[in-house]
């Protein structure tokens, strides 16, 4: 490192060519700047992505998942989500004669029965399943118990650990030699616990034997042919037939949840997007007119808005819904849209009026007016572009309100008429079976929550991005 020795040239004046380059960044327009700031906000970008996914789900989804949302299948109601479903083909022709223990007495020895010291009977040994257990029949057999006069058969959906957990018997056998039972009572695919006790004719033994049986879905051959799942003459008993899968399960009428969610999204999003768009537009025009004309017109217009604001929103929503009535075959969407527009416009109108009043007094508007700009120029060049940000934010926050309202109305049975699915009405239906099949409530509720969450986050992001004060700060 050599020491610095000043030279005379260092002190000479700089020439023009040496001037520091002027740093100019391209001037950003308001909207370009707002967009850039929105895209820098990770939560807003996430919400945009979520909304894009939702859009795809509703528009492209039904092209890939072509299951009809209104097809009912009472064999498969309230099914939890599954990716594949199979059914065992069976022939319903044969009856099962049952099993009889040969040479076994059907009743206990009367001398033993009369003895005061007789003990409780043993539990039946060797409880087992005959054949494949399926939803049309579960065939059980067991070894005979000495001194038995009959047997009681119990069925549970959990493992019973004590006698009092068995509940009521499913069936009984009134002979010590009849050691089989065929269960064909409303079986569903899944696990059952069968228990058998012996009885001596007077008293039931407290000892029982339990067997865990996994029951498979079965479909009789002729039913499969009728439903068009098999060509006539095809298939034979014992084969497995794959059935339509329901990735999100089925509802209480056996309708496919995924497909219903996709079609329900149309209803919910249609109302959720169109209603705010309509009332924000109307409110904007109304508020802009009031703010722009000012004076008497303003006072009258805003007084009307004050009255409408005072109406309890949901009550009147319901009232309008009742008043409009729904004809058979109608979905009632129009009535909901009209009621929302009639009741919700004043908030936007007030906001826009305030904005317009403020902008009217701004220096640049005064200057334009002084320069002789016509009213039309003032409105389209200054007022509208400067209120657009606020309107956009209002619109974004209005969408969750509309979606909630539709869901709430459908939830109390006052929304979209039944055959048309909507997320709200799906929640309403799902609530009834919430304890047994929570997926029926969970999925539509999740969709509503996700959509509303996305619009809320987007609204927050937009508000921050469009805020002129924030722009100045950076």
């Amino acid at each position, binding site marked *: 490192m050599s020491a610095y020795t000043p030279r005379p040239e260092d002190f000479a004046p700089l020439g023009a060519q040496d001037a520091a380059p002027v740093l100019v960044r391209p001037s950003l327009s308001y909207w370009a700047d707002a967009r850039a700031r929105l895209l820098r906000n990770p939560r807003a970008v996430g919400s945009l992505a979520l909304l894009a996914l939702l859009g795809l789900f509703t528009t492209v989804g039904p092209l890939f998942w072509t299951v009809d949302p209104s097809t009912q299948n009472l064999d498969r109601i309230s099914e939890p989500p599954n990716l594949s479903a199979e059914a065992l083909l069976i022939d319903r022709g044969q009856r099962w004669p049952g099993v009889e223990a040969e040479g076994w007495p059907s009743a206990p020895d009367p001398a033993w029965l009369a003895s005061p010291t007789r003990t409780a009977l043993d539990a039946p040994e060797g409880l087992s399943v005959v054949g494949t257990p399926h939803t049309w029949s579960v065939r059980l057999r067991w070894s005979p118990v000495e001194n038995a006069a009959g047997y009681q058969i119990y069925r549970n959906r959990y493992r019973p650990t004590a006698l009092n957990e068995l509940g009521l018997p499913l069936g009984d056998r009134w002979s010590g030699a009849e050691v089989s039972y065929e269960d064909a009572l409303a079986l569903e695919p899944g696990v059952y616990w069968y228990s058998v006790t012996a009885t001596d004719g007077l008293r039931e033994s407290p000892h029982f034997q339990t067997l865990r049986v996994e029951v498979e879905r079965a479909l009789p051959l002729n039913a499969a042919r009728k439903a068009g799942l098999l060509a006539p003459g095809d298939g034979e008993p014992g084969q497995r037939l794959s059935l339509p899968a329901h990735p999100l399960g089925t509802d209480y009428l056996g309708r496919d949840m995924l497909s219903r969610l996709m079609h329900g999204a149309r209803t919910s999003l249609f109302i959720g997007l169109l209603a705010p768009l309509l009332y924000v537009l109307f409110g904007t025009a109304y508020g802009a007119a009031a703010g722009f004309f000012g004076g008497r017109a303003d006072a009258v217009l805003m007084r009307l808005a004050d009255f409408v604001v005072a109406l309890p929103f949901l009550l009147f929503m319901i009232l309008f819904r*009742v008043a409009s009535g729904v004809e058979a075959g109608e979905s009632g969407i129009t009535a909901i849209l009209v009621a929302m527009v009639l009741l919700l416009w004043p908030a936007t109108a007030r906001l826009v009026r305030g904005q317009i009043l403020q902008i009217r007094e701004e220096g640049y508007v005064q200057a334009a007016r002084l320069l002789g700009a016509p009213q039309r120029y003032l409105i389209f060049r200054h007022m509208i572009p400067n209120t657009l940000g606020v309107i956009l934010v209002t619109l974004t926050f209005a969408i969750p309100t509309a979606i909630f309202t539709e869901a709430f109305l459908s939830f109390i049975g006052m929304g979209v008429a039944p055959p048309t699915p909507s997320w709200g009405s799906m929640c309403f239906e799902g609530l009834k079976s919430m304890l047994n099949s929570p997926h029926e409530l969970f999925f539509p509720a999740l969709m509503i*929550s996700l959509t509303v969450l996305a619009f*809320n986050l987007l609204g927050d992001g937009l508000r921050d991005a469009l805020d002129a004060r924030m722009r100045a700060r950076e």
Partner: protein
Amino acid sequence: MGRYAIKRIIQGLITIWFIATATFAAMHAVPGDPLSNEKATTEAIRKNLEARYGLDRPVFPDQYFIFLGNMAKGDFGLSFTQQNRRVNDIILDAFPVSAQLGVLAIAFAAIGGVLLGAFTALKRNRWPDVTVMLAVILGISVPSFVFAALGQLALVNANDALGFTLLPVAGWGELSHMIMPAVVLGLSTLAFLTRLMRSSMLEVLTADYIRTARAKGVSEGGIFWRHALRNASLPVITVLGPAIAAITTGGFVVELVFAIPGLGRAFVEAVQQLDYTLIMGTTVFYGSFLVFMVIVVDLIYGLIDPRVRLA
């Protein structure tokens, strides 16, 4: 203050008149009339019935003024579906239940929202703030019936797991019945108030008087409780009026899910059974109640913040 109060009350009365008129108009737009659903009657009997109830007279002005007159006397008429019950009695039975639930929910939402909002503002951008604000945005985005269902599901499972009834799953009567519905009902308002309180607190914390207080040597606790919290909760009081409205209507769902015999459930049931008089009565009653509450909140705000009275 007196003039301001009178002005607000007159405005409120006009609003109530507007609500009653809108209700009347909406109910007369319903296709058919109250007698058309009854068993077949002969023309003469029908005429007599209509004359008895004034239905043969023109809707406007006769029926309208009868309706207004009855409303002014506080007479909402007889229920269409519940035998021998006056709408007034139904409202008198059901409203206290809803009011109890609403007061609990408002208290939960207001106290929780103010404290949580103030707390997150103090811990700005640190993990407690981030977590609470995330929970808040979730709370705003989940519909109340989902919270109600989840709350019920949680109670069922908790009671099952504990082996005794910690809190009853549904019903009404004791304080234990009210806790879960009140929490569920207050949740979205709590979330909303937390957000509001947080931004208000952030603004107050940078105010000059806070710096002055700190310079005077007021302890941090004193600054928080005496200066910041009080001033920051002013905006919360303004939105309490709309919040009460939100909680009352939110009560519809919660009362339905938790089987609470309140006015919200009565209204929803009336709507489902098309009990016209009960629908009209409850709407006018609820509407008037909400208008009244908003006026009360405004007057309280006027007492706290003198600037409002002068404006």
